[in-house]
């Protein structure tokens, strides 16, 4: 008996979904995808596992030890995708190498991360996302962020914030200050952890020039709108950092045209652990969950890694976190009513079947069950 019981458990980090609970997931995903499709994005499906090189260190995605790896017969290392973006980039580079037209893809599927046990993190999570390939303009950035906002709104969530940063600001100031790679990395870690006192210590320790200290500390401040961005632009002398802020200002104006400015704020300390991001970066936050409900950014160098030189921008929504947020905020997720149940006996089976067929043809969900009789088991 006990042996059989063990068979029923799933490994750590994965679980079963069924019934109404699962329907809430699929309905939420459906709502979000309505927004993707409304913007003309086409569904794409890439393999669940790929060659290791697609997710290698040079690509700058999940660290190798957090990947699920295994071998095929030939001895190639295969990886369960930890993240869709490199897969979509590879696919686009393979099939659309010559195309200069923008490509619009959206996807839904499982991503796998082999993180430490007992941290309550899912090892298989469902991600919804979209990528815009071949558009390097601020209008492309705005399109993707606006689509994300529309997608979130479609789920019924209204209280959320999209925080937007630009890695180029940080890189520009590091370049102007002539910081070495180690200092840059340490600063990036401290800044993305909002660890201000560590940033201050680092700046002092590594003898960073006074004028740049202020500009780096400025990263830690929050920016509400265009005015704050303009003020930051006046304070910096780095051309690259100025360009980064100008890009955010363009984006701010475009998002205003979309009517979405109230959902957006700016945070220059937003720096991702995925190193393939090259320009704007953004994360979506809401009440009730401790993790972002969306994250994304621009990755202009990633496709070149696969042989197609094209700019790209995209994002993903972790469906599990999204549903958790909806539940925490008591936002009802509309799921269809249960199916109509028709009972039949041996005698009237044919008649009931006709009725069921007619209802099913109209699109109703119909379950047929045998009537309970006295002598039936």
């Amino acid at each position, binding site marked *: 008996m006990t042996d059989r019981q063990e068979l029923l458990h799933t490994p750590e980090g994965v679980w079963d979904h069924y019934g109404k609970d699962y329907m809430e997931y699929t309905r939420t995903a459906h709502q979000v995808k309505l927004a993707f499709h409304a913007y003309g994005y086409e569904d794409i499906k890439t393999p669940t596992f790929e060659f290791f090189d697609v997710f290698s260190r040079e690509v700058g995605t999940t660290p190798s030890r957090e990947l699920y790896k295994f071998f095929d017969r030939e001895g190639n290392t295969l990886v369960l995708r930890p993240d869709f973006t490199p897969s979509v980039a590879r696919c686009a580079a393979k099939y659309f190498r010559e195309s200069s037209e923008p490509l619009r893809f959206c996807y839904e599927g499982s991503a796998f991360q082999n993180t430490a046990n007992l941290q309550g993190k899912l090892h298989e999570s469902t991600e919804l996302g979209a990528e815009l390939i071949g558009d390097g303009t601020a209008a492309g950035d705005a399109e993707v962020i606006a689509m994300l906002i529309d997608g979130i709104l479609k789920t019924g969530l209204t209280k959320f914030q999209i*925080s937007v940063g630009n890695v180029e600001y940080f890189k520009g100031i590091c370049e102007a200050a002539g910081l070495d790679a180690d200092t840059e990395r340490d600063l990036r870690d401290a800044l993305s952890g*909002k660890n*201000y*006192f560590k940033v201050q210590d680092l700046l002092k320790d590594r003898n960073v020039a006074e004028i740049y200290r202020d500009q780096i500390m400025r990263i830690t401040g929050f920016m509400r709108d265009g005015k704050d961005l303009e003020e930051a632009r006046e304070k910096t002398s780095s051309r690259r950092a100025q360009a980064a802020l100008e890009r955010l200002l363009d984006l701010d104006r475009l998002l205003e045209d979309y009517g979405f400015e109230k959902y957006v704020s700016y945070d220059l300390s937003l720096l991702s652990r995925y190193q393939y991001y090259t320009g704007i970066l953004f994360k979506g936050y809401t009440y009730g969950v401790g*993790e972002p409900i969306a994250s994304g950014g621009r990755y202009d160098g990633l496709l070149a890694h696969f042989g197609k030189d094209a700019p790209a921008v995209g994002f993903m929504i972790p469906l599990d976190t999204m549903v958790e947020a909806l539940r925490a905020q008591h936002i009802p997720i509309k799921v269809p009513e249960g199916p109509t149940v028709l009972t039949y006996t041996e005698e009237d089976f044919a008649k009931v079947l006709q009725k069921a067929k007619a209802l099913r043809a109209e699109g109703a969900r119909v379950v047929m069950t045998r009537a309970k009789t006295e002598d039936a088991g």
Partner: protein
Amino acid sequence: MEELTIALTKGRLAEKSMKLLTKAGYPCREMEEDSRKLIFRNDALALSFFLSKGPDVPTYVEYGAADIGITGSDIIMEENRRAYEVLDLGFGKCRMCVAGPESARQLLEHHEMIRVASKYPNIAREYFQNRRHQTVDIIKLNGSVELGPIVQLSDVIVDIVETGSTLRENGLTVLDTVCDLSARMIVNQVSMQMKTDRILELIGRVRDVLEEKA
């Protein structure tokens, strides 16, 4: 006003944290009364406080069960949870050290394999692998780590040292400092975005109190 929930580390650290928060204008009278309550409230200021074991504070904060947490930097390093580390509170100062009998000092000089007993396996591994470039066998203990080298379970230990008197009484000495430690304030990354004004105000007021002292 948006509700703020603060997780504190049980014991002395909680007392010091509350003293600091009270001075900064975030008191909680309920907490001073003797009670079996798990959550303490200050309704006028829309604040909730709760006490937990140190290593659980970063967990509560990472999941957003608490917006803000106060705990030692040893725990933050060891747990390596995702949370913003926003303030060094300056109290609870001590050091994370490698300690052992004097005879073990030479084991640190070469890149040889070393056996380490510690309550902090992650910090110990980080230190020996990345700073000493040494192969390390870590034995996780849950208390009285000093016993390790005495009963020859391990060559050295990695542990918190305040005065060093426990070490001296047991014939152990500090062989190296891994890092300095103190109490830190951490903030959930989502709370920081969604309750920005309240949290930045709290950080600002606590920082003012700290600067006044210094």
